């Protein structure tokens, strides 16, 4: 992809709203998502899934399916040549279920055939004999040692305490509550899809896949296929959003297995219904929290018990739990804490990464608590938060010192300074009322409420995990070429990377090479980490190339390289008059460097939850204004005001896009998004009943970006993807409480919670 900007007076360097290099293809509809792939001689693949949340498999009979004309292969667990299981943290999830199915939708078999319709018939012809068992769907029950263990690894995925300071101290004021967070789905639009090409000879495979982390996928796939990693080549297909749902394996191994079995390219893609079953969801959680404070509202201690329902397989539950419990205190000073966290296995759908990763759940609890504290102390929601606001240098309840820039007070104040929206006019258009075109409300039925939420979010991976990123920069004839395995999922890294190269190297023309496993890992597109990590890698690689360039120019022109710098698009001598364009200076030569960016080391938590387990943190404040139809319990979110600690704005257009998009997802969790379970069964696996915010649900967003450059960050910029979706949810719920007087301790809030 070429990214030449014609007008070089305003170059697309860092800090500008450079445009997406893939924008033209996307608006034309010619951008190739993984579901748009097609290959000569290809077959279609499809998956057979368990209809039961918990059952023993007595037998699987594939003979009838194999006899159907057009069917080339039917595979089950016995056809997995290598490791039978996979997983991000613990390889406890079967490629195909063999003895037990542990969640509704668990894969049992897969077929390859000449047409999707043939696949459907083949799946229908596979006879699976199940002994249906009673699913265990209550995490509290599942945790008990006396309960049936639904997996050899046990039902308790992880238990972690945090004990900090004086566990017995108490405060004059105490407030407590029990909070429930429902199961949200990432619901990316670009449905799961992949194309696998087997090597002739069957010793390798090339997989084109929409995913978040090529190298992590490769490792798991190679182990299951029993192939050396070098023979499993992954190429990033066009990704239609991710939000955490592509971090776990879905169709990768199945697709490769079918390709190797049939010797032909295999295309697999999920329907929306299958997608709901085919990826992990956000952990539903039950959180009890108690705050002790002084009469003046200063937090003395926080206590909490958190139970995260991890569903049938481990996925990233241990890490989600840690994120949750280590964020119990929120962005507030707190010297004493007693926290007990559990991630539990049940026969509910597996849960794992979703934007916010455990902090969403903790934040709903701690922000609900802060409002209770405010009320108990006679303070406003803003006052109580300012009084307790964290600062750089404060100690967290894990003992870690907050070394990141921590402008919590500023986030709150600058959000507070954003003007309120106009009151709802008596003659406002019905589309502005809660209920919209349904015309359910009249003006007099509507009450407005205002609510606050402030959050802290860790950036990058934690607990000793070295999630480094790699990039290669090649400079030749005035053109910079960048290679990285970073998964572009829509967030705009493909826009940022060329901006970095232009800033560092003084070129305008930047080409992006294919994202694949032909270069080192970039880590996952998650945890708000890619700008920091892959950005750091690209920056590092470009700087190395720049050094080489200065050496080269210095040698040719007899100037000490230390005197050279890039100005605009030239190499100049800072002391003399020498100047040469980068293009001319790189005629006929090629300079190439690869750089790995590592963040600082982190530690495991000890038995008391003490340890420097996180890398860095970002902060944000949200204020929500909602209109509520009190009698019908319908809600219209009118405005979200926010000030976000972004470190440095590298691309204003991309930044506001992340903020507005994250807010919409947080709004979804607040009032409309939930996977509804009934004894292990998913009741609403479709967009008819899993409701995503539409254009008519979008609030006006007024955003301030607080730029206090983060010294630790290679570009001064913090990750910005997750904070927008975290504290907006409790802000909206707080606003509904203010309008209605209802306690509201669960999200999403349903109409009956408000009015009955």
């Amino acid at each position, binding site marked *: 992809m070429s990214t030449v900007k014609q007008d070089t007076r305003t170059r697309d360097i860092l800090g500008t709203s450079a445009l997406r290099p893939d924008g033209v293809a996307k608006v*034309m509809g*010619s951008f190739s998502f993984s579901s748009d792939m097609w290959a000569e001689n290809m077959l279609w693949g499809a998956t057979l899934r368990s209809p039961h949340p918990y059952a023993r498999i007595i037998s699987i009979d594939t003979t009838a399916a194999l006899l159907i004309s057009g069917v080339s292969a039917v595979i089950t667990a016995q056809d997995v040549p290598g490791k039978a299981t996979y997983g991000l943290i613990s390889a406890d999830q079967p490629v195909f279920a063999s003895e037990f199915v542990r969640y509704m939708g668990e894969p049992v078999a897969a077929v390859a055939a000449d047409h999707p319709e043939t696949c459907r018939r083949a799946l229908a012809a596979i006879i699976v004999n199940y002994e249906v068992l009673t699913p265990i769907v209550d995490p509290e029950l599942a945790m008990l040692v006396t309960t049936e263990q639904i997996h050899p690894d046990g039902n308790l995925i992880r238990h972690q305490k945090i004990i900090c300071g004086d566990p017995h101290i108490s405060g004059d004021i105490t407030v407590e509550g029990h909070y429930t967070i429902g199961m949200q789905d990432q619901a990316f*639009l*670009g449905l799961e899809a992949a194309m696998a090409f087997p090597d002739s000879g069957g010793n390798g495979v090339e997989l084109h896949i929409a995913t978040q982390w090529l190298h992590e996928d490769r490792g798991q796939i190679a182990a299951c296929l029993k192939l050396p990693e070098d023979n499993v080549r992954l190429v990033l297909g066009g*990704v*239609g959003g991710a939000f955490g749902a592509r971090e776990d394996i879905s169709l990768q191994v199945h697709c490769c297995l079918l390709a190797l079995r049939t010797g032909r390219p295999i295309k697999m893609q999920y329907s929306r219904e299958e997608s709901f079953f085919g990826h992990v969801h956000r952990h539903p959680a039950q959180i009890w929290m108690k705050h002790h404070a002084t009469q003046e509202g200063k937090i003395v201690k926080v206590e909490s018990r958190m139970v995260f329902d991890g569903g049938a397989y481990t996925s990233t539950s241990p890490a989600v739990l840690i994120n949750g419990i280590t964020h119990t205190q929120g962005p507030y000073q707190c010297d004493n804490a007693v926290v007990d966290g559990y991630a539990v296995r049940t026969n509910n759908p597996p849960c794992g990464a979703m934007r916010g990763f455990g902090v969403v759940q903790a934040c709903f609890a701690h922000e609900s608590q802060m409002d209770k504290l405010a009320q108990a102390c006679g303070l406003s929601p803003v006052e109580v938060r300012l009084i307790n606001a964290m600062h750089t240098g404060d100690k967290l309840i894990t003992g870690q010192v907050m070394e990141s820039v921590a402008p919590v007070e500023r986030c709150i104040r600058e959000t507070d300074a954003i003007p309120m929206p106009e009151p709802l006019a008596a003659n406002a*258009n019905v589309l502005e009322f809660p209920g919209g075109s349904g015309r359910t409300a009249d003006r007099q039925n509507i009450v407005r409420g205002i609510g606050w939420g402030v959050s802290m979010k860790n950036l990058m991976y934690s607990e000793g995990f070295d999630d480094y990123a790699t990039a290669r920069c090649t400079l030749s004839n005035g053109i910079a070429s960048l290679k990285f395995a970073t998964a572009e*999922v*829509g967030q705009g890294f493909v826009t940022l990377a060329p901006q970095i190269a232009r800033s560092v190297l003084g070129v305008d023309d930047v080409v992006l090479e294919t994202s694949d496993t032909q270069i080192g890992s970039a880590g996952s597109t998650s945890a708000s980490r890619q700008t920091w990590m892959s950005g750091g890698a690209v920056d590092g690689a470009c700087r190395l190339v720049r050094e080489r360039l200065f050496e080269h120019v210095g040698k040719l022109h007899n100037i000490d390289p230390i005197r050279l710098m890039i100005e605009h698009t030239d190499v100049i001598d800072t002391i003399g008059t020498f100047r040469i364009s980068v293009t001319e200076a790189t005629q006929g030569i090629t300079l190439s460097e690869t750089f790995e960016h590592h963040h600082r080391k982190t530690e495991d938590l000890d038995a008391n939850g003490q340890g420097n387990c996180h890398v860095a943190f970002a902060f944000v404040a949200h204020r929500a204004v909602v209109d509520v139809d009190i009698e019908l319990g319908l809600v219209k979110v009118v405005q979200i005001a926010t000030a976000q600690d972004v470190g440095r704005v590298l691309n204003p257009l991309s930044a506001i896009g992340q903020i507005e998009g994250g807010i919409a997802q947080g709004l979804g969790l607040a009032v409309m998004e939930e996977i509804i379970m009934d004894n292990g069964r998913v009741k609403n696996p479709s967009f008819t009943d899993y409701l995503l915010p539409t*254009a008519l649900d979008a609030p006006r967003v007024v955003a301030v970006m607080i730029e206090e450059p983060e010294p630790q960050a290679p570009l001064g910029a913090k990750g910005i993807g997750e904070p927008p979706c975290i504290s907006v949810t409790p802000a909206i719920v707080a606003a509904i409480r203010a309008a209605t007087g209802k306690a509201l301790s669960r999200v999403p809030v349903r109409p009956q919670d408000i009015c009955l």
Partner: protein
Amino acid sequence: MSNSIGNEMYTLRINGQDRSVKDAWVGESLLYVLRERLELPGAKGACEQGECGSCTVLMDGDAVCSCLVMAATAVGADIVTVEGLIEKDPSMASTAEVITSQITDVQQAFIEEGGVQCGFCTPGLIVAVHHLLDKNPDPTELQVKESISGNICRCTGYGRIFAAVEAVVQVRKASR
């Protein structure tokens, strides 16, 4: 004389051209036929039930969900896909060969205003916005929102999309 279609060829008029469909299972949706048979993958499928708008095309001047149109019943209709919106040289080949420099003002605005992130919803939105502005060149904010209320975007939160539409409206007004 009615037209009975079995497992035979039928012809659809797409982007001003007659395109023949052969050997199709006639229960296929227009979305499927466009993508898998006619090499027009611009329309996307994200729900198969008309709840996301990613598959939006114009049919006889109306914006409809192509996943809900039985392709074989669309004979005689004038269908326009996102690929057909750009001003092309009519003598060019009909399928995926498009000219990058000839994108429409709506498409350009989506890029310039940050209305594109992952891009999956984008083609459907481009069609819906073209349809809106063709019928209503000066829509109110609420009219814009209502007209795209059938197009789900999961990435942008719609803010930059509204900005893109507003930008086009202003530019078109100024040039009138």
